[in-house]
């Protein structure tokens, strides 16, 4: 089976090529390329990939099981296989560097891939309906397939450099898809911003990688397996303890984390994600909610052994996560664009995940990634269905009363809302409470307080969204109102599946019920050593049930608050203007930071270079040229003027020669 590992990313890549060719070939025809053909391929390949992943997952399980049973029966101590690996070819081999292009499929990968390909396939299906009337249908599908391929490479890569290939690949697809409707320059700007902000993070990733590589030494191959092994090796503990190496490791992990903040839209590189909503809604669901933006958390878990050795970095991660979660949640309160609300919600939830990772609960963070993928995907797809029904309207102030018109969509979104607010037994309930519990135990009361407050605010803005969209009286324009219709089946099916998922996905790790821990078991061997390193001894805090009660209480408090505030139509319902005042300043806080510290200095320096240094240099060269010309004029005059002068010059030459010849006599 491992021989076919490469097929998992290759199939969507093939889909990209087929759809790309279709798109180009059909670009000259009147109706554009065939949607049926294009859609078929676009969904087929992710689906086959998903099936392949399931099969691989089962194979891995079976292999592990068989080794375990052999060990048990025969009393042996054989190593349990942790991964299926495939090295395809030697990628970069020169000097000290020896990188192979290969994939490694283990528990962590399989969990990630299961929902990436699964949800990915569903969203592709949804896109067929959503994009049906768009001329760029095949192009869209091509990009989506390429994204999926890149994402799979990101997760499946056997080392950080292969991951980086996918890392930038998903960034590219994000760029292409945000700017998908490229006739509007604003979309292009948003896309460019996303790419550039990500590039800042990517540079951090690369530099961090260099430092990391310096720490582990050139003889250690750059694969996750080898790096983890190096950090777990007790022999290296003394090396790590020395001051220089420890500082270097802190810097390395901080830089790697910078990469994660770029991809996962954390402070300070948070600004691009809300703008990224300029892309089509399925893109927001797949890339900017469910999969790509969580790759930062994935990387933290992947390299948990490394991060666990850098306590300062872990502190930074936790605080950055908490700050982002709080900031984004508050920002979400002010937004009127349905997708922007969800975008800030995504940022906030990502903050939760980083908070979890930062306090040393990598598995809880990943669990939230998993549940979040379901409920945020369904929320986005539901929002997409609403936008679709309203003919492109995204302003929640112009919605309302849709619960009767779009019952099916409402049901799906309700499931998503139920999950994200953390009401009991929904997907978010399990993961969020787990995080809160871990934060209290390992991060202290301050972080817990921030997280809890954020949970309240989360419930407020999500409930506001639901009220303004579905429950309040209709404010929809009359012309639009006649055309409101439920989405086609291809959009409905993914909604239902994901809706059900967001209600029940949490049961893969129902912390309160012993035995319901399929999820963390999958990749325990990846993150457990790191977590053990960070957590010393058993923590005796409030009981799990009490904490869950507090969490649910926070959610209910938030919901009630929202009903109190918005049912009466207090703010945000009326008016159509842009944000203003403090709300605007708060929303654009980090944009301003980027402008002041990044963009403006760059602009100034480049302006100085172009408008001052360049002409100056040019002037110097001109001056030199004029000097040469001047000399030329003089020489020309000498040549042209007098016989005697010419003669005098040759005598000068004669004297010079004589001086050289007679230098012994002088």
């Amino acid at each position: 089976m491992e021989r076919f590992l490469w097929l998992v990313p290759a199939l969507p890549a093939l889909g990209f090529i087929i759809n790309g060719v279709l798109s180009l070939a059909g670009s000259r025809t009147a109706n554009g390329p065939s949607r049926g053909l294009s859609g078929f391929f676009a969904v087929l390949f992710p689906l086959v990939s998903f099936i392949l992943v399931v099969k691989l997952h089962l194979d891995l399980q079976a292999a592990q099981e068989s080794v375990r049973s052999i060990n048990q029966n025969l009393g042996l101590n054989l190593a349990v296989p942790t991964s299926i690996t495939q090295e395809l070819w030697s990628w970069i081999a020169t000097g000290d560097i020896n990188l192979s292009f290969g994939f490694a499929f283990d528990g962590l990968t399989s969990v990630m891939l299961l929902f990436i390909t699964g949800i990915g396939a569903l969203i592709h299906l949804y896109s067929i309906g959503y994009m049906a009337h768009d001329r760029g249908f095949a192009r869209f599908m091509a990009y989506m397939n390429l994204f999926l391929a890149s994402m799979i490479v990101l997760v499946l890569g056997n080392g950080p450099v292969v991951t980086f290939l996918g890392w930038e690949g998903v960034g590219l697809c994000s760029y292409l898809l945000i700017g998908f409707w490229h006739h509007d320059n604003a979309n292009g700007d948003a896309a460019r911003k996303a790419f550039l902000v990500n590039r800042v993070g990517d540079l951090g990733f690369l530099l961090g990688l260099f430092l990391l590589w310096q720490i582990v030494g050139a003889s250690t191959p750059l694969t996750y397996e080898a790096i983890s092994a190096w950090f777990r090796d007790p022999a290296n503990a003394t090396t790590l303890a020395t001051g220089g190496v420890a500082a270097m490791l802190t810097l390395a992990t901080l830089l790697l984390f910078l990469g994660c903040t770029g991809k996962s839209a954390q402070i300070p590189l948070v600004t691009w994600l809300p703008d990224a909503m300029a892309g089509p809604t399925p893109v927001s669901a797949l890339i900017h909610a469910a999969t790509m933006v969580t790759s930062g958390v994935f990387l933290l878990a992947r390299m948990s052994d490394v991060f666990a050795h850098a306590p300062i970095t872990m502190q930074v991660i936790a605080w950055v996560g908490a700050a982002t979660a709080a900031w984004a949640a508050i920002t979400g309160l002010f937004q009127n664009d349905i997708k922007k609300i969800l975008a800030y919600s995504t940022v906030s939830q990502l903050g939760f995940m980083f908070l979890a990772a930062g306090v040393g609960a990598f598995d809880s963070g990943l669990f939230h990634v998993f549940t979040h993928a379901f409920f945020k995907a369904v929320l986005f797809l539901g929002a997409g269905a609403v936008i679709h029904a309203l003919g492109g309207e995204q302003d929640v102030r112009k919605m309302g009363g849709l619960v009767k018109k779009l019952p099916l969509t409402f049901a799906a979104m309700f499931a998503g809302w139920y999950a994200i607010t953390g009401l009991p037994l929904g997907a978010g309930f399990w993961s969020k409470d787990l995080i809160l519990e871990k934060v209290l135990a390992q991060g202290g009361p301050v972080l817990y307080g921030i997280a809890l407050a954020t949970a309240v605010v989360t419930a407020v803005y999500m409930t506001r969204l639901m009220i303004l969209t579905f429950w309040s009286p209709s404010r929809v324009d009359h012309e639009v109102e006649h055309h409101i219709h439920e989405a086609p089946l291809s959009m409905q099916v993914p909604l239902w599946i994901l809706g059900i998922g967001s209600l029940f996905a949490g049961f893969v790790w129902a912390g309160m019920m012993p035995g319901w821990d399929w999820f963390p078991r999958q990749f325990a061997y990846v993150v457990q050593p790191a977590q053990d390193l960070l957590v010393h001894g058993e923590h005796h805090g409030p009981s799990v049930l009490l904490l869950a009660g507090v969490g649910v209480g926070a959610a209910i408090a938030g919901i009630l608050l929202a009903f109190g505030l918005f049912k009466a139509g207090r703010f945000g319902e009326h008016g159509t203007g842009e944000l203003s005042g403090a709300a605007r300043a708060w929303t654009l806080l980090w944009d301003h930071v980027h402008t002041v510290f990044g963009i403006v200095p760059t602009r100034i320096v480049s302006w100085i270079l172009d408008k001052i240094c360049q002409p100056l240099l040019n002037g110097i060269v001109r001056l030199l040229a004029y000097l040469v010309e001047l000399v030329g004029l003089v020489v020309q005059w000498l040549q042209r003027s007098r016989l005697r002068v010419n003669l005098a010059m040759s005598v000068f030459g004669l004297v010079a020669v004589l001086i050289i010849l007679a230098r012994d006599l002088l």
Partner: protein
Amino acid sequence: MNLHLVLAAPFVAAILGFFLSGTDAKSAQRTSLVLALIIAGISFPLIGAGMIATKAVTWFSVPVVGTEIKWLLTSDGVSAWLVALLAALVPATLLAAPRIVGDRMREFATLVFLMQGCMTGAFLSGDLLMFFGFFEAMLIPSTVLIALFGGRDRRRAAMTFLLFSLAGSAPMFFSIWWIGLSCQTTELSVVATRLTSQLDPVFRPWLFGAIALAFLVKLPVVPFHLWQADAYSEGPAPASALLTGVMAKVGLFGVARILIPLFPVEAARFAGVFVAIGLVTVLVGALLALQQSEIRRVLAFSSLSHLGLGLAALFTFRPEAISGVLLLMVAHGLSAAALFFLAGIAETWTKSSHVDDFGALASRSPLFAVLFSLAALASIGLPGTAGFVAELLLLVSVFKVYGIWVAFAAGITLILSAAYTLRLVQRMLFGAPALPSTERQDLSVSEALGVAPILVALVLFGFYPSPVLKAARADLLTRLPVASAVATEDAAHVAGR
């Protein structure tokens, strides 16, 4: 593989070029294309041939002093790849040219072949003076190309180009003359062994600097870059593609193949200066590119920036830097050439080179848009293209020798290059069309066929760069340890003091 044949082929093609039809541009293009493909067919096998050389023949010997000038062609991994790169770009040039040169295809093709011949000669020369001859000779066809086929300000651009290049290489001639006198020969391999013992250490830095200047101007680097933007933007785009795609590489090639091997001690001694120049070039080039509003000026400064990184990395003397630089030369040669080809074609649609006069090419010319954005992405070093592997290797080598902060400074180019390239892409391909036009203009099949293989190669080398990397390993590494040993010795010496 007969190296003489490889060298002679372009010149023969240039001579045959005189007999092409002067009136029927299409037939001239077809015939020259066949010739170019034949040359490519002759040149490509060099890659697999490894290190080969012809028998050294005494070309002439200087009277009185008795210095022997050899006629000797050598090919190693690096030169083989560069010759192949050149041979691959020439057919694409001919395919991309018709819209720009119009009826004068015959003259264009002849000049291009001449340029190819001179550059091939420079890559294959095994003798310093021979190299210098070809190095200077390539100026003639390229200047004529700019002056004949360029834009409004072509004459000034051609003159600037010529004067800068001549001024840069004049000291090199002096240096070669001195080396020839001291070593009694100008054969590269012999000079390399004799130079350290035969030359007064007081003069060596000057000779080193004189040779370095020629290559730095050719490359170019800040502050010798003033000719570049003018030449690339005023010259005919296909020729600019060759200028940046291959001729600029002669500079890097010279540094790697001549400067460092001949003067390992000086190279090690002044490595810091060159790294600094390289980094300044990287950043200044990128920042200047941000300010430009003409397509080809953006591309010119982008070339400046990318090649600066190559220079900086070369002077780390790391083996991965050598491989990386070769890959950078190939990757940048391909991607920059593709961008120039496409930019040239697009400029014929709007009759303008200003970015604001474009827009919405993505919907009007989808094929163009796909190829252009692919080339742009390759040029910013997106993983999966050859540029990424190259930049990764270069950054690694800079990091290893100069540490994280220098690597960070060099790495800023990753962000800046994305900034200016994507800005260009957006202004050209996206948004609303600047000039109302109903007709759908797109690339012709032959133009697309010229550019597409370049992009395929870029992606191929992005995933499987080993052939290129291995080629560099085969050759220059033999001399590198000398330089790095001296560098460490120097460092120890300094530390000891």
